[in-house]
């Protein structure tokens, strides 16, 4: 919490993660996610707020996510859904008007929120590395690939030139680039090779977690597919976990173990990738999935999702997806849905409030539904409080 400036508007509304409304939902998320004790990254009720001229914008709203070691988690959503902000918040890379205003990020049992730069520097590259969207901007244009690798290694105390050279060549070979390119400058490499060398750099210390922010979006399909296959192979071989953020849902379909669909800063659906693809529960997930024309099979007319991506500076009284939802009900306009647990998945949609699509109500379902309504009312009030501040 120390990263929140004292005068940050709205910061008083979030005194700490324990006081969070809806924390029972989070603990249910924990039940689901923490199937074994191998949880490496534990994100709880993470909330990120941007201080804007006209008040605040909550870009990430109480997101909880657990990542096990060796797991591949995909995060998908449209631009502005908060997926990149979430990732930056996890990696403690937020700056400027954005700040974590609630929740916690625990990595290997240690809280990352509030660590000093020096403490973070020890973690970065070594235990956790980030591959940015645009390798062109992430690599230093006036230094060779090799000297950038050297910088990262020396920062973590590797001094021996021989060791540095050996390891640099090794990781470059892992991503299928000839080690002679250690002497190349970024502009001498193709877009695909630049992204590969970024991934090589991320693997210098074989970290436990690599966070990737749309690493393939600048590449064309052939290079994209080849890179995805390679990431997956390396991940299986070396056992690191991956959080992969993308706007292209079809890209992760064959690669991720679990999938989180984000909408308007919140988790819309979270479950095993195959389940989400085979049978999306949230109308938004379904819409995203049906927005892709297929290259094979019969030609079907698609409709996409009507309307525009959500504007987070607006105030939402009900479900944030309601204005675009094909299955919208009257209650959706007034009742903000909580995350409901359905068939081992979490979904934020009133359709599934009492279990799957209102069918098969059991007593536990009714209990939790009652709690949820109470929670959501408090939450709505809190939201209004936060947003009404200047």
């Amino acid at each position: 919490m120390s990263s929140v400036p004292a005068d940050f508007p709205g910061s008083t509304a979030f005194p700490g993660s324990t006081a969070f409304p809806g924390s029972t939902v989070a603990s249910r998320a924990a039940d689901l996610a923490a199937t074994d004790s191998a949880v490496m990254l534990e994100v709880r009720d993470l909330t990120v707020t941007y201080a804007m001229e006209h008040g605040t914008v909550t870009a990430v709203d109480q997101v909880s996510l657990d990542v096990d070691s060796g797991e591949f988690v995909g995060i998908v959503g449209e631009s502005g859904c908060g997926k990149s902000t979430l990732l930056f918040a996890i990696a403690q890379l937020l700056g400027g008007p954005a700040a974590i205003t609630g929740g916690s990020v625990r990595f290997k049992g240690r809280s990352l929120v509030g660590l000093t730069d020096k403490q973070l520097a020890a973690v970065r590259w070594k235990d956790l590395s980030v591959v940015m969207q645009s390798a062109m901007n992430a690599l230093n244009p006036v230094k060779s690939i090799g000297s950038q690798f050297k910088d990262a290694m020396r920062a973590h105390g590797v001094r021996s030139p021989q060791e540095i050279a050996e390891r640099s060549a090794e990781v470059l070979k892992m991503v299928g680039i000839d080690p002679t390119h250690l002497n190349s400058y970024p502009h001498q490499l193709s877009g695909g090779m630049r992204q590969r060398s970024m991934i090589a750099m991320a693997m210098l210390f074989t970290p436990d977690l690599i966070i990737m922010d749309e690493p393939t979006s600048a590449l064309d399909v052939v290079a994209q597919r080849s890179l995805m296959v390679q990431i997956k192979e390396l991940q299986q071989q070396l056992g690191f976990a991956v959080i992969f953020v993308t706007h292209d849902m079809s890209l992760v379909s064959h690669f991720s173990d679990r999938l989180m669909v984000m909408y308007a800063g919140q988790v819309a659906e979270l479950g095993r990738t195959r389940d989400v693809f085979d049978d999306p529960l949230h109308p938004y997930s379904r819409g995203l999935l049906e927005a892709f024309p297929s290259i094979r099979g019969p030609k079907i007319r698609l409709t996409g999702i009507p309307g525009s991506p959500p504007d987070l500076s607006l105030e939402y009284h009900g479900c944030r997806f309601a204005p675009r939802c094909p299955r919208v009900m009257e209650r959706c306009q007034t009742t903000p849905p909580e995350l409901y647990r359905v068939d081992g998945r979490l979904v934020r949609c009133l359709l599934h409030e009492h279990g799957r699509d209102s069918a098969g109500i059991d007593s536990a379902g009714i209990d939790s539904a009652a709690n949820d309504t109470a929670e959501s009312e408090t939450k709505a009030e809190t939201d209004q409080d936060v947003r009404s501040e200047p």
Partner: protein
Amino acid sequence: MTEQAAASPGPVTADTAEPLLRTDALSKHFKIGNTLSRRTLHAVDDVSLTIGERQIVALAGESGSGKSTIARLLARIYKPTSGEIYFLGKPLSRMHSRPDRLKYASEAPMVFQDPFASINPVFRISHGVLRALKLHRPELSEQERYAEARRVFEVVGLVPADQALQRYPHELSGGQRQRVGFAQALAMRPRLIIADEPVSMLDVSIRIGLLNLMAQLRDEQGVSILYITHDIASARYVADRLIVMYAGQIAEAGPVEEVLANPRHPYTQLLVSAVPDPRAQPHVGAETDRGEPPKVIDPTPGCRFRWRCPLAIDICQTVTPELTQLAPDHDAACHVAQSGAEVRAFS
């Protein structure tokens, strides 16, 4: 009269043998390097393509394949190094007078990739449309111009049009801005819209809406569209014909379903195999290909795909394959396919 304009998308030319647009051995080379190391980048080499009336032609290929250069050649932003573009049978190189150039610009307008950069942010949305109308259709009065702007906004689905016209660009989402781009093009009563990656900057959830709009413009307004894209699945969704480019040359061309169901060029097969398809079962393939871009600086004769092609034979090293018809209306530039052998490079 504006209503009539909406109903009749322009008469079909008397000379039906001549397609709407045809290029003949079109090439564009760029000089790079300094005086000591002068080299030539062959962005587009020897491209002959045709676009018919009421047709969406998809031009697909990876970055650097020359597809955007073709768009710029057709929009007369670049001058071809050699070759010729014929619009309704008339060569563009002989269109010199200002009225001729303006007429072509209004008949073949361009829609750009980035809807955030292609609209002037300090003016209302109506500004661009009305200005274009004033320039290209001077016969309209001020009221008629406004009525026409309203009509095209309604056609592209920006309703209520009166309100939409008064908005500023920052008030619109990316998808809405791209619709403004199409509305501006449509206001000039075009025959052909050159759309350079019109949906690649948009969110997946709204891409389909734009693709449906393109199909609607073809079906209801009778406009042809050159749809430039790297997304071959969206090409299949919306286009009638598909032209696959590789390293500045056409690799394969034909009706979109035919080309995708039965790709003859190894590169087309690679492209098709690389498309992520969540509905398909995971399969292994194309892993050996890294997607490295081709060498188009001072290329030597020979097939430009030969370094990546698992089927390359001796002749591929020395002779550039010509685009040859292999099936009715289905052409490919591949020695192996032309020899009659079955091509199964990537699947």
